[in-house]
C-alpha cells in the first residue's frame, strides 16, 4: 500500500497527455494488421483505409476520441487475479494504492553461482569467491524459478522468467509446458503470454481442471494473459490481436503490454514518449472492450530508453522512471488497473551495478502506485538473463521499497502515547528507549536491515551469503498440484512432456 502516491504530473499535464494521445489516435491513427479488430473499430465509428505493407494487408484506422472514451467507460476498475492458494489472490483496484511485485521476461540465460576457493598470490591466504556460470534456459530452470518465487515473500505474482529451450519443446507444445511448469510449482497468480494461438484453449482447459470449470476460472482466474498487441510505433499485430480478442471473449484478465524504446521506436523526450505509449495502451484497451465490453483488461506500459552506444534497452536510468511513473498516472486517470515495471538490471551479473540500477527503480516507480510491478525479480542484462541469487537479493530490496511506502506513523491519536513515553524515559535512570523499540520490533514495525552482511575486511561476501540462503530456499518442499489433477491434465494436454509430472510417468 502506497501511503500517498507521488503525482509527478499535475492534473493539467495528465489532461494534456490525454488530449495529445487522442489526437494521435485520430491522426495519423494506427496501422492495424488484424481484420477483425479493424471491423470492430469501424463499427464503433472509426474511419478505415486499406493499405498494403509489403506482403501484408493492413488498414490505417483513425480512431475518434468518442470511441476511446466509450470503451474506457466499460472497463472494470477492479480485477481479481486468482491463485491456487486463495490467500495469494491479488486484487487490482485502479483507484486504490496497493502495489504488487512480480517476476517476468523470458530470459535466454540462467546464472548459476558456484562458490570456489582461491589462494591469493600476494598473501597466500585462501578466499572463497562466487563464480558465475551462464546456462541456457530450460524447463528445469523454469520449475526452479517458479518454486523459488513461491518462497520469496515479496513476490506477489508469477510471470515465467526463463525461456525454455529444451530439445523436445517446440512452438507446438511450448505454452502448455510453460504454463504447467509454472502452475505446478507456485500457488500465487500466474500471468503469461501465449506463443501459439492454438494452445490458448489447452492452457485455459488446464486452468479449468485446476479450479473446477470455466465458471470457477472466471471467478478465480489462476491464469491471466499478457498480449504484446502493439508493435511500436502504433501498429497492431495481427496474430496477437487475434489472441487479445479471444481472451477478451473468455472473460479472462489480460494485460495490454506495449514496450516502445525512446530514441528508436518512440520519441525519447518525456512528452513524446508518454503521449505515444499511452495511445498504444489505449488502442489495445479499445479493441479488447469492443470485442467484449466489460472484459477485465489491464493497462500495460513498459516504456524504455535506448542506450546511446548500441541502441539496446535501458532500464536503470532516470528517464525510464519518468516515463513509467507518468503511465501509472495515466492509467489511474482512466481508472484502468496498471501494469508497470521496476528492478531490471542492465548489469550482466549480480553486483554493485545491478544493485544501483535496481534499487533506483524499486524506489522511484512504486511512488506512482501502479497495481502490478513486473520484471522485478532476478533480471539482468536488460531482460536477457535471470539470476536466482539476484532474485533473492531483489526480494530484500523490494521489502525495503514496500516498507518505504508504508503509511506514516504521525497521527493525532498517537500524541498522548508519545508524550507519556518521553516523560517515562526522562524519569528513568539511563534515559533509554530500548523498551519501546522492543515493542515496535515485536509488532513487525522495524525493518530487518541487510540480511546478507559479511564480516570480511577484504572482500564483499554478500553474494556468497545470498547463495547460501538461496540453497536453503531451494530445499523447501514444493507445493505441487494434487495427483488426480495432474493426472487429468496430462490426459487432456497431449503436448506435455512426461518429466514435468511429479507423480511419475
Amino acid at each position, binding site marked *: 500500500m502506497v501511503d500517498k502516491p507521488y503525482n509527478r504530473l499535475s492534473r493539467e499535464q495528465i489532461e494534456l497527455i490525454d488530449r495529445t494521445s487522442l489526437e494521435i489516435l485520430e491522426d495519423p491513427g494506427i496501422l492495424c494488421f488484424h481484420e477483425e479488430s479493424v471491423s470492430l473499430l469501424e463499427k464503433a465509428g472509426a474511419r478505415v483505409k486499406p493499405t498494403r505493407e509489403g506482403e501484408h494487408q493492413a488498414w490505417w484506422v483513425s480512431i475518434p476520441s468518442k470511441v476511446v472514451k466509450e470503451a474506457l467507460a466499460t472497463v472494470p476498475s477492479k480485477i481479481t487475479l486468482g491463485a491456487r492458494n486463495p490467500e495469494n489472490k491479488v486484487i487490482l483496484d485502479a483507484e486504490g494504492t496497493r502495489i504488487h511485485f512480480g517476476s517476468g521476461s523470458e530470459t535466454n540465460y540462467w546464472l548459476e553461482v558456484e562458490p570456489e576457493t582461491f589462494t591469493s598470490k600476494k598473501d597466500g591466504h585462501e578466499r572463497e569467491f562466487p563464480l558465475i556460470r551462464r546456462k541456457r534456459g530450460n524447463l528445469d530452470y523454469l520449475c526452479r524459478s517458479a518454486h523459488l518465487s513461491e518462497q520469496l515473500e515479496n513476490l506477489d505474482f508469477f510471470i515465467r522468467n526463463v525461456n525454455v529451450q529444451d530439445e523436445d519443446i517446440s512452438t507446438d507444445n511450448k505454452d502448455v509446458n510453460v504454463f504447467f511448469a509454472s502452475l505446478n510449482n507456485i500457488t500465487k497468480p500466474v500471468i503469461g503470454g501465449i506463443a501459439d494461438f492454438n494452445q490458448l484453449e489447452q492452457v485455459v482447459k488446464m486452468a479449468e481442471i485446476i479450479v473446477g470449470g470455466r465458471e470457477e476460472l472466471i471467478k478465480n482466474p489462476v491464469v491471466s494473459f499478457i498480449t504484446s498487441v502493439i508493435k511500436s510505433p502504433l501498429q497492431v499485430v495481427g496474430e496477437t490481436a487475434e489472441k487479445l480478442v479471444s481472451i477478451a471473449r473468455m472473460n479472462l484478465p489480460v494485460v495490454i503490454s506495449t514496450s516502445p524504446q525512446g530514441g528508436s521506436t518512440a520519441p525519447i523526450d518525456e512528452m513524446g514518449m508518454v503521449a505515444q505509449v499511452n495511445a498504444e495502451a489505449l488502442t489495445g484497451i479499445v479493441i479488447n472492450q469492443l470485442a467484449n465490453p466489460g472484459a477485465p483488461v489491464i493497462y500495460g506500459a513498459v516504456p524504455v530508453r535506448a542506450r546511446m552506444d548500441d541502441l539496446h534497452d535501458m532500464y536503470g536510468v532516470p528517464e525510464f522512471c519518468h516515463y513509467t511513473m507518468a503511465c501509472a498516472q495515466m492509467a489511474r486517470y482512466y481508472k484502468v488497473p496498471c501494469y508497470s515495471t521496476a528492478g531490471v538490471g542492465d548489469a550482466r551479473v549480480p553486483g554493485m551495478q545491478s544493485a544501483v540500477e535496481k534499487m533506483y527503480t524499486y524506489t522511484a516507480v512504486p511512488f506512482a502506485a501502479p497495481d502490478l510491478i513486473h520484471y522485478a525479480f532476478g533480471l539482468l542484462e536488460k531482460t536477457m538473463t535471470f539470476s536466482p541469487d539476484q532474485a533473492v537479493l531483489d526480494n530484500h530490496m523490494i521489502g525495503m521499497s514496500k516498507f518505504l511506502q508504508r503509511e506514516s506513523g504521525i497521527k493525532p491519536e498517537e500524541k498522548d502515547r508519545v508524550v507519556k513515553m518521553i516523560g517515562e524515559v526522562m524519569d528513568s535512570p*539511563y534515559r*533509554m528507549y*530500548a*523498551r519501546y*523499540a*522492543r*515493542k515496535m*520490533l*515485536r509488532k513487525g514495525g522495524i525493518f530487518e536491515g541487510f540480511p546478507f552482511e559479511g564480516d570480511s575486511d577484504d572482500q564483499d561476501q554478500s553474494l556468497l551469503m545470498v547463495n547460501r540462503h538461496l540453497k536453503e530456499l531451494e530445499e523447501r518442499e514444493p507445493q505441487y498440484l494434487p495427483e488426480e489433477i495432474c493426472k487429468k491434465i496430462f490426459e487432456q494436454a497431449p503436448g506435455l512432456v512426461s518429466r514435468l509430472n511429479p507423480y511419475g510417468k
Partner: protein
Amino acid sequence: MKEELTDKIVENVLQGRRNQEDEGIEEDYAGEPGVAELVQQALDEGVETNTILLDGLSKGMELVGQKYESGEYFIPDMLTAAEAVEAGMKVMEPYLGGEGESDGKGKIVMATVEKDLHDIGKNLVCIMLKGAGFNVVDLGIDVPAARIVEAVEEEGAGLVGLSALLNTTMTNMEDVVKELEQKGMRDKVKVIIGGAPTSEDFAQEIGADAYGKDAFAAIKVAEQLLQAGGK
C-alpha cells in the same frame, strides 16, 4: 508454589516487565504483577534469596541470552529484560545479608572518563552487567580519574570499567590505572576498558587488565577476571 513463582519471574523477565505497570511484548499482561511484585511476593512467602536469584532472575536472563544468540532476540530485548532483572534486584537488596552477598557476582564501578560525554555504550554495558547479576555503581560521564579511584575505594569494588569514545579522552584511562597504583590499590582492583577507539593492544599499553569490544564481552571478561582471582 515456590516453583510457580520463580517460573513467573522467568516469564516476566522475558517479557521485560519491571512492575505491574509495564506492558509485556505479548498482550494481556496489563495489571498483572511484574518482576518487582513477584520478587516481593516470593520474599514474603519465605523463598530464599538465592533461589529467587538463580531459578528466577538469572535463569530468565540466561534464556534471553540464548534467544539472542539464536537470532530470535535483539539488543532491545536484552536491555528490557535486564531492566526487569534490575527491578527485581532492587527489591531483594534489603534482604541480602552480608556485604559480599549483596554484590551478586561482584561489584563494578563504571564510568566514562574525563572530558568524554558519550554514554550510550557505557549504559548498555551497565544494564547488561546488572542483568547478568553484577552490582554496578555507575558514576556517569566526564568523571576525573581521582573521583573514579575514590569511588572504587569507598565501594570496595574489585572491578572498574572505563569507557571512552574519543581518541583524545582514551588517554585519560591511563590516569586511572596510575592513580590506582599510586594509592596502592592496583593489585586489588581489575581494570576493564572499552569504547570504539580502544583495543586489546591499547589495554596492554596502559596496563589495564582487559578490553571488551561490546556488552557481551564486558560480561565475559568481568566474569573471567573474577574467577582468575579478583574479588
